[in-house]
């Protein structure tokens, strides 16, 4: 009888060309059960403080969650974690698909990659064994060619291939990692870390089944089957399956928080051209992740004004808003083309779109000009310019060299006040959610260890009406008080604290953001039930919240060690200035109110006013050792 884990980690030293298998015991597993917690532990323990994110000393960890691969919809996620070349701090990004489950079925909870191979290589893992293979012939090739070649070489069409693209090979600081061409660890530049190690791909094949690892396979399967039936009969599950994330464009625009022209505006005059009706005219189908009955991944292929194939994932909401309204472009075909370029080249859509929107505003304000862009007229709304710049970023040529560094570094180089246009937190470009209309998202942007990520808590509209489906589900987390979307008072702070812990627990368990309540259809009791069935642990929701909180504090202690704790917990200045159109015209986040909320959040978390966890809090979370590891005054 298992308890949800293989208990093994694969350690790969690319400098020495060695691999070895490590095991961990039950006590360790109870404390660091997988995903973000497991990876953050190893990052803190194994990484040399101050190591160059793009040097051989950085440690890249690919970690499955406790439930990754379980026969439960949305239990597909795995984490890519390293020191971020974009932020210099805790880098993390999750992806779904098939690779994470396959890793678990191949007998490993995680892969820890250190060093740097002298020549390009790829890693092949099969049922508990690993081999480092020559990839010189794959370097520089497009992802489809690489995936096909690896499957041919290994003689197995069922091998799951995780890889980087040209951007990762070239060290673009926001390069992503993809698996099966359609699923992306997009954020914080994990693809650049992988590329800096000359590691083009990790191919995995496993023949175990998750239920073989589970304490109570029958109970786990029962939960999985019941949830799969429930999806079309639950409003939030139905929504994801029917519309997916592109359904957000219309609501964001109506609410006046659709980022437009680099977050100056909250409504876009061509929003209808980007909205769901337009989207569904181009969507050719949907796909799914391992064992997930939601089936939300969009497929898009057309040949009209532009040609887009269905080789990669179609644009999600983030790409629609990022390359659309935020770059002033009201043409969904053009957006889909930009999305495809990023996917093929291995670039994070969100940071690419944010950095290009920043450059467009710099261009329009004369901070950069045609001489800097090789004549590209890099203005808002210029589709040709958008499509021209993305490959330059991937190749780090011309203006692409500057923009490949991300908006924060580019602003430092440009100077003359360009930083006022750089919409980032800790160097990570903001996602396409304007916190001037939902301020809790701003708390997340500012205080999250990875920077401007929108998937680190749940968004404010969920907390407004206690009779709503979402709020009623959230009550199982202990959230009982409502708060308005723009409220930054103590209730919102406490709610955010709970939401963040629950979200973090999802990243430890390997569940998708679009699975559990309150965002979606899997009720809190079913998450607890699945963990119990998998592990046999007598565990409750408070235990899962503590697991989530521990992972947050591990990440925080990493940032403490790297010297970027509380001092960088703030928003870009523009968010403290008024929106310039729409129903929220004139609305800004008041700086003093926001800073007070951040201070309140530190207190609720048991942190010093400096944003550093107290030793007491670390002790309570069983990670007091991190105080010594960080060398901090805790």
């Amino acid at each position, binding site marked *: 009888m298992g308890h949800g884990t293989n208990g093994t980690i694969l350690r790969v030293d690319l400098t020495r060309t060695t691999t070895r298998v490590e095991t961990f015991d039950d006590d360790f597993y109870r404390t660091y059960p997988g995903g973000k917690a497991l990876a953050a532990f190893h990052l803190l323990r194994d990484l040399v403080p101050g190591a160059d994110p793009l040097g051989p000393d950085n440690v890249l960890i690919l970690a499955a969650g406790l439930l990754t691969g379980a026969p439960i919809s949305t239990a597909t996620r795995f984490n890519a974690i390293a020191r971020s070349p974009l932020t210099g701090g805790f880098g993390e990004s999750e992806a779904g698909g098939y690779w994470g489950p396959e890793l678990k079925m191949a007998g490993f909870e995680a892969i820890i990659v250190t060093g740097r191979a002298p020549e390009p290589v790829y890693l092949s893992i099969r049922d508990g064994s690993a081999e480092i293979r020559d990839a010189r012939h794959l370097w520089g090739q497009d992802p489809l060619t690489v995936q096909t070649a690896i499957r041919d070489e290994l003689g197995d069409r069922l091998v799951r291939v995780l890889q980087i693209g040209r951007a990762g090979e070239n060290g673009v600081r926001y390069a992503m990692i993809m698996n099966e061409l359609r699923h992306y660890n997009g954020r914080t530049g994990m693809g650049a870390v992988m590329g800096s190690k000359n590691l083009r791909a990790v191919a995995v094949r496993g023949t175990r089944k998750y239920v073989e690892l589970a304490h109570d396979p029958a109970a786990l399967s029962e939960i999985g089957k019941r949830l799969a039936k429930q999806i079309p009969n639950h409003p939030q599950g139905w*929504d994801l399956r029917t519309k997916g994330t592109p*359904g*957000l464009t219309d609501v964001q625009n109506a*609410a006046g928080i659709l980022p437009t022209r680099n977050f100056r505006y909250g409504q876009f005059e061509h929003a209808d051209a980007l909205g769901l009706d337009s989207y569904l005219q181009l969507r050719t189908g949907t796909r799914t992740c391992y064992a997930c009955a939601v089936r939300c991944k969009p497929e898009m292929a057309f040949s009209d004004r532009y040609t887009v194939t269905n080789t990669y994932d179609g644009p999600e909401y983030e790409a629609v808003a990022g390359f659309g309204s935020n770059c002033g472009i009201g043409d969904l075909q053009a957006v889909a083309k930009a999305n495809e370029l990023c996917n093929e080249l291995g670039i994070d859509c969100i940071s690419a779109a944010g950095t290009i929107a920043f450059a467009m505003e710099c261009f329009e304000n004369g901070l950069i000009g045609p001489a800097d862009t090789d004549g590209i007229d890099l203005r808002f709304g210029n589709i040709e310019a958008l499509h021209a710049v993305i490959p330059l970023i991937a190749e780090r040529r011309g203006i692409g060299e500057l923009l490949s560094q991300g908006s924060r570094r580019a602003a430092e180089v440009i100077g003359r006040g360009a930083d006022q246009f750089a919409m980032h937190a800790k160097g990570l470009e903001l996602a396409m959610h304007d916190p001037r*209309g939902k301020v809790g998202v701003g708390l997340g942007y500012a205080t999250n260890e990875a920077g401007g990520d929108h998937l680190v808590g749940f968004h404010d*509209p*969920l907390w407004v009406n206690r*009779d709503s489906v979402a709020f009623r589900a959230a009550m199982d987390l202990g959230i009982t008080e409502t708060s*308005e979307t723009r409220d930054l008072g103590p209730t919102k702070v406490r709610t955010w604290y709970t939401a963040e812990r629950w979200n973090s627990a999802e990243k430890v368990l390997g569940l998708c953001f679009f699975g559990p309540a309150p965002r979606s259809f899997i009720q809190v009791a079913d998450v607890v039930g699945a963990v119990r069935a998998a592990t046999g642990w007598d565990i409750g929701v408070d235990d899962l919240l503590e697991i989530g909180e521990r992972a947050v504090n591990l990440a925080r202690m990493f940032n403490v060690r790297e010297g970027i704790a509380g001092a960088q917990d703030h928003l870009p200045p523009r968010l403290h200035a008024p929106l310039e159109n729409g129903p*929220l015209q004139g609305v800004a986040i008041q700086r003093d109110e926001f800073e007070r909320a951040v201070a309140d959040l530190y207190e609720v978390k048991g942190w010093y006013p400096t944003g550093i966890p107290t030793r007491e809090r670390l002790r309570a979370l069983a990670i007091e050792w991190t105080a010594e590891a960080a060398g901090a005054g805790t």
Partner: protein
Amino acid sequence: MELHLGGHLGYYGPERRSRVHVRLDGRTSLSDVLRRLGIPEAEVAIAAVNREIVRLEGATVVDADTVHLYPPVSGGAHPAAGGAHPAAGGA
């Protein structure tokens, strides 16, 4: 009246449709329309009549109107619930 049901509100629409034509005789309370269709008000975060955001409470519509409703998924303003208008909320 043309009714557009954003996000998961379409789940509550007749036959799970997100576009619904409702025939109205004279000016009618929007809340009454929702009750008639079985759309729970608690799930409506934003209501807009002819592109103008309105409070659900007290809103009325006529047959020629186009109404957009959005749920509390990811949107920001929340005037439909009867709270303070977002632009007046201490900005």
